[in-house]
């Protein structure tokens, strides 16, 4: 792997780390498999890009992007809790609907180019240059700052009463209901928050690559899961602080692993999703394989 490929993978790992944190909130905190993210990532990209081309400041455009993501997550949450549709199906329905919504937001086109438009990276590049950092590390520097802020905010949130209620909703909904929490509300807010982060990620990715595309969300959930399981496998930890930080580290390591795999001649860039899915399967069945091996060893001892 070249040095440039390495830096590119780290950059991707950081920005998609925001998405992975969103997936962590649904998948791990709420125990809610949420596929909305495949739609809310391009949603954030579309909203932010359209706002920028309409003359809004790139920084300000992140707010409506996150708001749109929050709404998309709320739709999934409401379908699940109020209309009692299975959570997985609810999220697939929202994701499917978002495909049309995203095209509509982009003005009946499948993409919006940001080639000659300002981005958040333009506004920080003088500062990065003044610090003597190479200009093509600008986005990485910005992502490090943003991801650190989001991680800190999430750790703070999980320690508040609301965060504790979110954690309890995923762990034991019956118990937390008997303690006076309306789990419909915690699920709607939690899934909304998760998708707001995913949309923020989508907006930054669009600004970084210079375009929003309707298909850029394909495979988001799997990449998010991969980051989470890679982080958990490598860093473990039960404390929420450790778990949140390991999601981001997992995201970076996952992108590095993919970059390493793709640098081999046998793979082409379009194999990205296949490699990711295989990686997730391997990581998810790890505990099962471990326990099988262990119990086999135990049996032999007894015999």
């Amino acid at each position, binding site marked *: 792997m070249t040095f440039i490929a390495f830096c590119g993978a780290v950059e991707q790992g950081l920005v998609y780390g925001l998405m992975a944190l969103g997936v962590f909130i649904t998948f791990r905190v709420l125990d809610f498999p949420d596929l909305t993210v495949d739609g809310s990532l391009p949603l954030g990209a579309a909203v932010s890009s359209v706002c920028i081309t309409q003359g809004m400041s790139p920084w300000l455009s992140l707010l409506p992007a996150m708001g749109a993501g929050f709404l998309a997550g709320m739709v999934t949450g409401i379908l699940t809790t109020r209309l009692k549709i299975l959570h997985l199906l609810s999220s697939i329905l929202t994701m499917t609907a978002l495909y049309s919504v995203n095209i509509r937001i982009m003005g009946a086109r499948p993409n919006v180019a940001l080639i000659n438009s300002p981005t958040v990276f333009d506004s920080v590049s003088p500062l990065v240059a003044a610090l003597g950092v190479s200009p093509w590390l600008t986005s990485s520097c910005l992502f490090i700052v943003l991801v650190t802020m989001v991680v800190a905010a999430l750790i703070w949130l999980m320690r508040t009463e609301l965060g504790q209620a979110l954690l309890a909703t995923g*762990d034991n909904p019956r118990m937390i209901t008997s303690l006076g929490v309306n789990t419909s509300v915690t699920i709607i807010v939690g899934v909304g928050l998760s998708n707001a982060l995913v949309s923020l990620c989508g907006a930054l990715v669009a600004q970084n690559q210079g375009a929003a595309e309707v298909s850029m969300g394909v495979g988001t959930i799997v990449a998010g899961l991969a980051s989470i399981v890679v982080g958990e496998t490598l860093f473990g930890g039960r404390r929420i602080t450790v778990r949140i930080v390991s999601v981001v580290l997992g995201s970076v390591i996952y992108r590095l692993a993919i970059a390493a795999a793709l640098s081999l001649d046998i793979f082409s860039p379009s194999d990205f999703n296949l490699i990711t899915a295989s990686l997730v399967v391997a990581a998810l069945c790890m505990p099962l394989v471990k326990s099988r091996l262990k119990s086999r060893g135990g049996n032999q001892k007894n015999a």
Partner: protein
Amino acid sequence: MLETSSLIKFFGRGTVNEVLALNGLDLAVGPGEFVCIIGSNGAGKTTLMRCISGSAPPDSGRTTLDGRDITLWPEHRRATLIGRVFQDPLAGTCASMTIEENMALASRRGKKRGFRAGVTRTEREAFRESLSKLHLGLEGRLSDQVGLLSGGQRQSLTLLMANLLTPKLLLLDEHTASLDPKTASLIMDLTCQLVDEGRVTTLMITHNMQQAISYGNRLIMLHHGRIILDFNERDKARLTVQDLLQHFHSATSGDNQISDRLVLG
């Protein structure tokens, strides 16, 4: 304190498997009463409790608690008045969260949850003190995950949590049934201690006849969704396990079914 009138609850209504679980049940419980509820399987004991807690609202009938009509209140709102302990010792706590986090969740029962700290320093001290009453050594393990505790320890913790904010009504659904006899009696002692301290109005379902006689100051027997026997404190004091079994048999003799738990007395 608690009053239910004409509670009716069907399961699978309109199907061949239709079951009438509560058949116009009326129950009035005075403040500070500790009512033991017995009855064969399918008599409607747990259904009654679920109707009162709001987890399975009745098809018709009214429920008032502490002078408030809670008939239309959803489960999470009723939680402001009601503390609960379930039969499954794992059901009342969050395994992945720590002891202090679980207690903090319980100490905010029915209150608004916002962006304040989930566990505060002053709370931690108070939790340590109330845990020391359990004599299980949990006061030194505040930041241990609840999943590391045994069933008995978890049930003790759940019971303590249900009483952290003194509830208007405490619902105990066979809360010692899945514990070994020694732990079960420890939990019952703790139950009495907490109920006495807070003068809590309590309903307790049990299949243990001796328990039903020894604890509480009123005993009712349910059958086919109705109350068929109601003993006050004085009558209850004279009851023996044999008497109760007799009542059980005469109540169920009409049915062509064997009540399995009954055999175990």
